[in-house]
């Protein structure tokens, strides 16, 4: 039964991904406890040099338990995704913090960071 729930949750997640791509500009988000834990930068069909650092804190209620990091490295793509597939399910305790970097000629910048504790595609800042 748990297996079926994961399949349904995964299917819903994939549907949601398609709906939320940056279609006319670069968008950034993180999601936590969403089958995956992830931080993603994207702009459909437009490739740029991007790097995403996604910090996955194991327990939002006890950060002493630590975290692990997914670093995409800097590469040219239209979708830079730091994803840990199947790391946590809805209701899990993870907190995800995404740092989204852009590299242009002679400069690099950090966009707003994205801190989340649930599966909604917002945020942003606090969740």
């Amino acid at each position, binding site marked *: 039964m748990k297996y079926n729930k994961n399949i349904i949750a995964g299917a819903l997640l994939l549907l949601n991904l398609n709906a939320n791509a940056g279609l006319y500009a670069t968008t950034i988000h993180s999601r936590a406890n969403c089958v995956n834990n992830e931080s993603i930068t994207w702009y459909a069909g437009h490739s740029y040099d991007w790097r995403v650092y996604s910090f996955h804190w194991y327990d939002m209620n006890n950060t002493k338990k630590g975290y692990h990091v997914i670093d995409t490295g800097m590469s040219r793509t239209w979708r830079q995704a730091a994803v840990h597939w199947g790391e946590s399910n809805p209701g899990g305790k993870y907190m995800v913090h995404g740092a989204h970097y852009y590299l*242009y000629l002679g400069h*690099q910048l950090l*966009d707003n960071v994205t801190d989340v504790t649930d599966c909604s595609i917002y945020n942003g800042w606090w969740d």
Partner: protein
Amino acid sequence: MKKLILALGLFPMIALSAVTDEMQAEMNKELIKAGLPVPGSGLQVVPNGQIQVSGWQRDKFKSDAKEMKEKGYIDQTSERAYELMHFKEQVKRNGYSDNPSTNEGDSGLHRNASEIAFSYSYVGVPISEIKEIYGVAPSGAFLTLPQKGWTGAVVFFKSSFANCAYTEKNIVPGQGGVQVEESFSRYDVNNKLTTVEVEGNNNSGFLYNIFWFDLNYYRQLECATTSYSTNILKSTIDLAKKIDNN
């Protein structure tokens, strides 16, 4: 009563999920080790070569800078220039989003910015500088606090000299960070830290790309034309100044 219970139930979730200074310090160690700007590090002009990029990227920095100096532009096909010059046709093909971008699920193109929820007071391009507007779309992150909405937007429009796209990103206090290498740093736009890049060729058209920064906003103005001229670059910078003063 139900609303009160709901509100009380939500509050701890918001409070618990905030990143503490201790957590941020831990994460910053990783980012600094990777040579990246950390949240809240502001605007930095750094020595040439300090931005850590792979070998081929460093070589490209050098060759692009050389071409900018010698020709005034980087001689390469610009897909973005072509896209902007033909943006009106794209809008005719794809149309506009029927849903207002008042939630995280819609990043489509809208007729104007009033159809988008912002997390800050959207500024945009002065109306006097827009000959025709092609559309506005969300950019950045969708925040829930302190105000529910997007952190930025791009507006596609026709100016007096070119088709342009202006992207505005509001930086949440204590979050952004910009590093510009010394040889690329300029102050063309109202004495704010600026970078200028022009790319293109006669097949694709030319893209005039201006970035400028302050502690509250990252701004980018891209204008596209069929040919290269220093006058068009000047017009693009002048337009950036007017946008900045808006």
